[in-house]
């Protein structure tokens, strides 16, 4: 199977196998007019499973790096302009995320005050643990 190279656009490479479609959904790529390819289970030398997912977007768009860093911080982002690739090796997990996930703790103040923003803070970088800033429940 061949997916042709792109001249101007973005390639998200080294996505953990199985997370490609999740990213496609949360990044809102289904809304785009341009060509978008999601490749699942591509061969990977780096990955311990030997597999990776890849997303190719045939346009320059603003990506939410916080979402990428939260869902899969090991991803390589390649921004291609006129055929020249500017590689960002690894996306760091963001210190805080807002509006991406909701706190599910029924005892949290966010369960009764709907207008409050759902904000999570990175409390354990090694294990990628995010906690609700209000009740400190772990993000699931």
């Amino acid at each position, binding site marked *: 199977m061949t997916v042709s190279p792109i001249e101007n656009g973005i390639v998200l490479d080294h996505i953990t196998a199985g997370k490609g479609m999740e990213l496609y959904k949360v990044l809102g790529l289904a809304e785009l007019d341009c060509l978008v390819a999601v490749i699942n289970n591509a061969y990977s030398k780096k990955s311990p499973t030997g597999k990776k997912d890849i997303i190719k977007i045939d346009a320059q768009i603003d990506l939410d790096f916080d979402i990428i860093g939260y869902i899969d911080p090991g991803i390589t982002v390649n921004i291609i302009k006129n055929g020249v690739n500017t590689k960002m090796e690894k996306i760091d997990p963001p210190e805080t995320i807002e509006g991406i996930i909701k706190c599910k703790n029924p*005892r949290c*103040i966010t*369960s009764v005050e709907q207008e*409050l923003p759902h904000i999570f803070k990175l409390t*354990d970088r090694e294990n990628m643990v995010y906690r609700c800033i209000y*009740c400190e*429940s772990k993000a699931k």
Partner: protein
Amino acid sequence: MRSLIDILDLTTAEIDELVSTANDIIADPEKYAHKCQGKKLATLFFEPSTRTRLSFEAAMYELGGNVLGFSEAQSSSSAKGESVSDTVKVVGYYADIIAMRHPKEGAPLVASMKAGIPVINAGDGGHNHPTQTLTDLLTINREKGRFSGLTVGFCGDLKFGRTVHSLIGALSRYEKVKIVLVSPKELTVPEYIKEEVLKAKNIEFVETTDLEEVMPQLDILYMTRVQRERFFNEQDYIRLKDSYILTPEKLATAKPDMCILHPLPRVNEIAVAVDDDPRAKYFEQAKNGKYIRMALILKLLEVE
């Protein structure tokens, strides 16, 4: 403008400063009798409380200030559906400082973001209760003269016991503290306390269901009540409520200078006969609560 939402908002140096101020107030209360003249404390208690609310009110009166507020959600606009954010925005115009208790976790943090005046978390559900922790620390300081090197046993409901979580967090910042966790299996300390506090800070800790086995090691025994209001299921509460009852007989193997603490109210987890034991310090602890809250109000209002 500072608020106190979590005990870890305070550095250990600030805790030392508060403890020192509280000790000074105990030694010479007259010196502080007019420090907050013209200032108002709003006590916003959306959940019932006796000690905490009254000790806040007594603290402000003894500083020469005034108090306004409510003691249950039904007598506030929250009964009409008003949000915490709206309530505190308004209270921020009437008072200089807020002490808030709320059944929902994180409500005082929301209040501190919106009120425009300092907010003290007076307990948010099963989450945090930093002024109880300050009370506990003042009592430990007065009884033991130090925090480092102590073996502290926590017994009872360690899952929902917010005072336990806050005190473990505070003690974990001192050297050579050993924590002993005694609870039924259903009420063990939450995983995140073990992973992100105890293990992360290399604090020695053990978990057991047997209080008598660990009793001889303890410098402090912190008893807690199994709280009916934290259970969704009444049958679980009934099954677990009598797991540990401290009696004079069980204290036979305890150190002669061990200190028994309890955040109160107690139900039956400490037999009344224990009250006469010189090691029982829980009423002294409740008294200390007023003094440390006086010190905290002074600090947050930046009164010299």
